[in-house]
């Protein structure tokens, strides 16, 4: 019986295996939460192709084509990595604020063990649970950031493609004017002006994209220092994570101490201090 809130969201089918984490599923398995290895993008994006065509018509567009090609990201690969951060890793670790499914299974396995050492172990489980929840939030935060980044690259590509398409239309129109001696001189000026306008617009877009990418880099660095507790916490998002606090406290709990070596032929004995511990045996 799965407690409410631990099951998969409706419409996602059963979890990879039974309750909780279950045995790990190999990444190649159809039920694996991991995506297939990153797909390689097929050739340049639409924006790059359009500008390549434009630079074939007018030499003046070549420098912009090179800029566009240098800025173009692999949107599909970024979106796939986003899915991995959010679903495959974060999703299986559970939901922050709730008990992780695997931790719940461990807690239920302690039934029948009732003494002070069990309380200490349960405390360690709770600390571990909250740290794992923070790690999961960090992974989601990472995925969110990548999603915004993929959007930015997609928007940039769309805008650049539209601009390049209208430039090509203008250049093709000017070709006719160039063919006639009466308008040839004016057409050369018009071509230079059209390309210059488009170049300036692309450079403005590049500035926007570059600013966004630089902001994202700053945010990633901040996320890292917040996770490692190097710097102050983020205004929003996950905070410091320290799993070391989830170790079982052993002071005053002799059951967790290493059992004394058994002398040859001697009887088994308990660690020192065991007389003072309430073993709770009838």
């Amino acid at each position, binding site marked *: 019986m799965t407690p409410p809130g631990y099951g998969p969201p409706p419409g996602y089918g059963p979890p990879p295996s039974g309750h909780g984490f279950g045995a*790990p599923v190999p990444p190649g398995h159809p039920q694996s939460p991991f995506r297939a290895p990153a797909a390689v993008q097929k050739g340049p994006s639409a924006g790059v192709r359009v500008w390549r065509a434009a630079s074939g018509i007018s030499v003046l567009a070549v420098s912009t084509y090179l800029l566009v090609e240098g800025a173009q990201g692999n949107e599909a*690969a970024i979106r796939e990595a986003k899915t991995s951060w959010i679903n495959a890793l974060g999703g299986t670790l559970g939901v922050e604020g709730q008990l992780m499914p*695997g931790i719940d299974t*461990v807690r239920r396995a302690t039934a029948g063990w009732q003494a002070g050492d069990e309380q200490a172990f349960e405390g360690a489980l709770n600390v571990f649970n909250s740290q794992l929840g923070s790690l999961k939030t*960090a992974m989601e935060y990472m995925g969110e950031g990548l999603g915004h980044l993929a959007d930015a690259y997609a928007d940039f590509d769309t805008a650049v493609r539209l601009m390049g398409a209208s430039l090509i239309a203008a250049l093709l129109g000017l070709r006719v004017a160039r063919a006639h001696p009466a308008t040839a001189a004016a057409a050369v000026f018009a071509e230079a002006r059209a390309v210059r306008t488009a170049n300036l617009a692309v450079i403005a877009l590049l500035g926007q994209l*570059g600013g966004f*990418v630089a902001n994202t880099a700053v945010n990633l660095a901040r996320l*890292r220092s917040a996770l490692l507790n190097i710097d102050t916490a983020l205004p929003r998002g996950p905070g410091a994570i320290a799993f070391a606090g989830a170790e079982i406290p052993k002071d005053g709990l002799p059951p967790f101490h290493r059992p004394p070596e058994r002398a040859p032929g001697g009887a088994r004995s308990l660690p020192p201090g065991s007389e003072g511990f309430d*073993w709770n045996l009838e």
Partner: protein
Amino acid sequence: MRHIWRKIAGVSDGKHLSSTAIARTAGAVDHHLTQPLTSYQGNLRRQTDLPPGAFGAVGDLILGRAYTEIQLTVEKLLSDARAVTLGWQRDLEYARRNWRTAEDLAEAEADAIGRLT
């Protein structure tokens, strides 16, 4: 004679209740925490790695390093988590052996009292 029957009946005789539960707990920690964490840690890089040029030739220069550092940080945190669950497994194994000793000592004492009365 009684303890022979207990041995035949297995460990669920009521005398080894705690040590049995601790052994079960250690098994659950291994199967439900340590093993998945090991698997995530091993898969993280491969699943989140981006092909070269994913942020563009220029974007890679700006973002590539920060992205790799996050990957390494999360990998380290997963490895910390795994170290903690492995420590639990060691502590629980000690606890199981100690409890087993304590249970057997208590049973021997009870048998001795039973023989006297």
